[in-house]
């Protein structure tokens, strides 16, 4: 057997995602939670109490807000919310696990049975409405506690011959989301992962900072090989543990997609009981490596935690939580495309970051307040946010909403441009000017006054004065006599150089369209 015998390879991926919920306290203790922004930079072993480190006599008490955040994510993923849920102990010994068991959920997770719709994607993984989308089933989302961390070198990187335990993370609320094996490409998985992060941000349940481990991914990957003789071979499932960047998720899946057919040619192992392999991911070398061979090497001895009574989630509570679920990013993107005529890619870009999306919506709103038709306002605000805004944000490594310019000022600039009071060059100048002066409040009319004042001070307002235009045209024709001759001779294309000269002569105050008309009249 060789590669030649494999006619086609299909990828099958299911995903487990761990999301650290940003509650103020830990899930079963009142100690502060490192996943909450207020406690990000805590010194090791300061976010602990008797419950977190499992002192004798300490008892867990469930945080209702962790349950509510879990419910919100479940609802966003189309899950059913369990009317009765409970917690179980998952037993294993490791020094980062203070009690010798993890409080998790075995058979009655808070959320189950959901599905999300993914758009069709192009080769780069961007939405493409001309391609077919996919539905990803969500098996369950359960709420459990995180473990602490073991450090094998001292802070600063000095080698040590012992390990250091930091229990700050121990007991942090962790939502584990498990999908059906419905993904057929690495790009799809990454799109889902990003979408999930974005959903979590929109719900306010996680900041989704990958470097801080707010989200960790564990794809279960195998391939279906169609052979020349028509047989279909399913390769053993490989679970890759603890991926904490989108790049690693994509690279690990692509790696397995390439490796699994090769492994099959070598060892002929196929999917089946006891064949599942757990692998780690070496980000530097870009390869996976075996961590654990057999699927059921561990016996976790799950049993219901007697310290935590089962939890009833009644309809009233469920509906109160449902009211707190805002319009989700995908729904917003669809609305922008439909209402404002944005392309799928543009619309998707606008919902990528929660704060930028809200910034964009405020700009659109302000623009509508200034008298621009809403359908036009959405488009104009999108252009400014995605072009002038995104360019500067990228340069500075911040979000558009963090640049310093306010959404009302963005609307004011768009409004001036729409009214033909400023040119494109002036838009950029004013954008920078408003970044410098900083946001001045949400009132659209006041922002318009501020922006207009700056435009005036800088002489950026288009002058509709025939005498000036006459003068600028004459200067331009004198400066670009060759081009003027060409236009006279009927070479229309040469007009561009003359318009440019008018803009230079006017210092950007001329309206390009008006300049074109005046030049053509003169050169007739």
């Amino acid at each position, binding site marked *: 057997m060789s590669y030649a015998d494999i006619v086609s390879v299909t990828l099958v991926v299911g995903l487990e995602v761990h999301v650290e919920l940003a509650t103020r306290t830990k899930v079963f203790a009142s100690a502060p939670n490192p996943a909450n922004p207020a406690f990000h930079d805590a010194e090791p072993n300061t976010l602990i109490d008797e419950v977190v480190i*499992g002192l004798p006599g300490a008892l867990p008490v469930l945080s209702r807000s962790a349950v509510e955040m879990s419910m919100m994510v479940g609802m966003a993923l189309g899950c059913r919310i369990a009317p009765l849920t409970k917690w179980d*102990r998952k037993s294993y010994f490791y020094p980062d696990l203070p009690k010798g068991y993890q409080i998790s959920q075995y058979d009655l997770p808070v959320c189950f049975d959901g599905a999300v719709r993914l758009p069709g994607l192009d080769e780069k993984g961007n939405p493409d409405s001309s391609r077919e989308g996919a539905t990803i089933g969500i098996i369950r989302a359960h709420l459990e506690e995180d473990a602490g961390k073991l450090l094998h070198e001292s802070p600063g990187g000095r080698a040590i011959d012992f390990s250091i335990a930091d229990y700050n993370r121990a007991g942090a609320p962790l939502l584990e989301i498990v999908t059906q094996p419905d993904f057929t490409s690495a790009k799809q998985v990454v799109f889902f992962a990003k979408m999930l992060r974005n959903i979590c941000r929109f719900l306010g349940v996680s900041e989704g900072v990958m470097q801080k481990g707010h989200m960790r991914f564990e794809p279960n990957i195998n391939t279906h090989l169609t052979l020349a003789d028509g047989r279909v071979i399913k390769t053993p499932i490989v679970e890759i543990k603890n991926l904490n960047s989108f790049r690693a998720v994509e690279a690990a899946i692509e790696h397995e997609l390439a490796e699994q057919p090769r492994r099959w040619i070598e060892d002929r192992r196929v999917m089946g009981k006891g064949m599942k392999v757990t692998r780690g991911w070496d980000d530097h070398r870009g390869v996976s490596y075996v961590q654990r061979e057999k699927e*059921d090497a561990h016996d976790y*001895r799950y049993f219901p935690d007697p310290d935590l*009574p089962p939890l009833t989630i009644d309809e009233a509570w469920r509906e109160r939580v449902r009211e707190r679920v805002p319009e989700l990013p995908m729904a917003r993107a669809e609305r922008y495309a439909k209402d404002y005529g944005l392309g799928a890619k543009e619309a998707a870009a606008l919902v990528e970051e929660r704060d930028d999306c809200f910034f964009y919506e405020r700009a659109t709103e302000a623009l509508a307040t200034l008298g621009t038709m809403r359908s036009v306002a959405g488009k104009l605000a999108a252009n400014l946010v995605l072009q002038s805004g995104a360019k500067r944000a990228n340069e500075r490594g911040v979000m558009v909403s963090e640049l310093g310019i306010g959404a009302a000022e963005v609307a004011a600039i768009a409004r001036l441009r729409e009214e033909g009071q400023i040119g494109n060059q002036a838009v950029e100048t004013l954008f920078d000017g408003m970044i410098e002066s900083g946001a001045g409040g949400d009132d659209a009319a006041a922002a318009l006054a501020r922006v207009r004042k700056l435009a005036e001070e800088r002489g950026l307002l288009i002058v509709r004065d025939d005498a000036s235009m006459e003068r600028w045209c004459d200067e331009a024709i004198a400066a670009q006599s060759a081009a003027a001759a060409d236009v006279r001779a009927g070479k229309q294309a040469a007009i561009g150089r003359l318009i440019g000269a008018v803009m230079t002569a006017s210092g950007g105050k001329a309206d390009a369209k008006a300049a074109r008309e005046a030049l053509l009249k003169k050169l007739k």
Partner: protein
Amino acid sequence: MRSARDIARGVAAREFSAESVTREALAVIDRENPRVNAFTQVFHDFALAQARRVDADLASGKPAGPLAGVPVALKDNICLSHGRTTCASRLLENYHSPFDATAARMVMGAGAVIVGKTNLDEYAMGSSTENSIFGPTRNPRDITRVPGGSSGGSAAAVAAGMVPVAIGSDTGGSIRQPAAFCGLVGVKPTYGRVSRFGLVAYASSLDQIGPLARDCADAALVLDVLCGKDEHDATSVDLPTPASHNTLDEPVSNLVLGVPTQAWSTANHAGVTASLKSAIDTYKQLGAKVVDIDLPLSDYAVAAYYIVAPAEASSNLARFDGVRYGRRAEGAKDLTDMLCKSRREGFGPEVRKRIMLGTHVLSSGYYDAYYTTALKVRRRVKDDFDAAFRAGCHAVLMPTTPGPAFAIGEKIGDALAMYMEDVYTVGINLAGLPALSIPAGSASVGGATLPVGVQIVGQPFEEGELMRIARMLERAGQSAGMA
């Protein structure tokens, strides 16, 4: 020693000081403890400091708590930020808890003076207080005999007059059986009545903290202080406290008591059967109706208990790994070796046995056969009691133990005989019901006359009624004694 209620009344009225009561108690402890070995630690200075604080508070006009100046002994599996919390285990020999158990906080808040920690079977696993790194506690009634267990130290401290009341914990009879062996009243409240926060867990779904005292009134006084919802214990229940002390002397009218056919086991000591009969007669004379009931599943209660309790214990004791606190073995090769060595050196044989048993019954492939089956038995044990209550019984009357206190060393090598000590008590923990043991007679064994208790099992959260029923028997016995 005076009763707890007399001390509290006298201290509150400033007839005598909490300090003088405490000095008196410490003197008795210093005299008696070497003989019975009830205490793992005695807090001379800490006790006097608490007592002086009580006196100072009263002097400054603060209201007296219901236990003002009452010396109390605390079982050494209940956390206290003073001294050590050892669970009578090598592993926790030098463990200092940074916090107080809610139960300890409650009694101290009521004005009690904690004079020391009492001996127990390691992690409360045992029925004789012989499984302890501090050596066995002796029964003050006959020092060749065990005081029962696992709250044997608390029972012995009260029986020897070292303290008027003590706090114990009961997972399968660990308050009631020592009470019976030492001639005391011992109460296990309804599961959820008393906060378990700070009680080092043995079997979380069965453990309850409760009082041991010389009579019903003192037991009720402490019980009322212990009860209440605690935000640190999710299994504690938000119900008004029973106020059993105030209503104690109101007899229950039209009282109906059920006596299970299983109470008349041929394995009972003659003195146990006679004491039960005598209690039944007394109640009948008081106008109660005594009816036969059947608790068919009680035959399986011991078996179910020795699956459920070790299963939970195997998990509860997993935290003792020598990493963050407790004894860590020297010279380990690696992580696993350190863990195994620390636990092997730290735990005694009975604890190791129960951890292995519990680990086994939760293992994949055995879980359903053992653990799931035991949970089914558990539900039906409760159903049996519910049926009796539905049929009109206010409470169920039965022996506390099959026999009186046995000799030290008599059963230590025979696990099954030791486990059968719990035959009348474990079912009540499985059902989560309130129950108490009260002195009801005596038994002669080889020339010695030993106390015998009867057990009264009440309806959920009806501790007030349970105490009144017990008090009826106690008062009849007192008047008979006087006659």
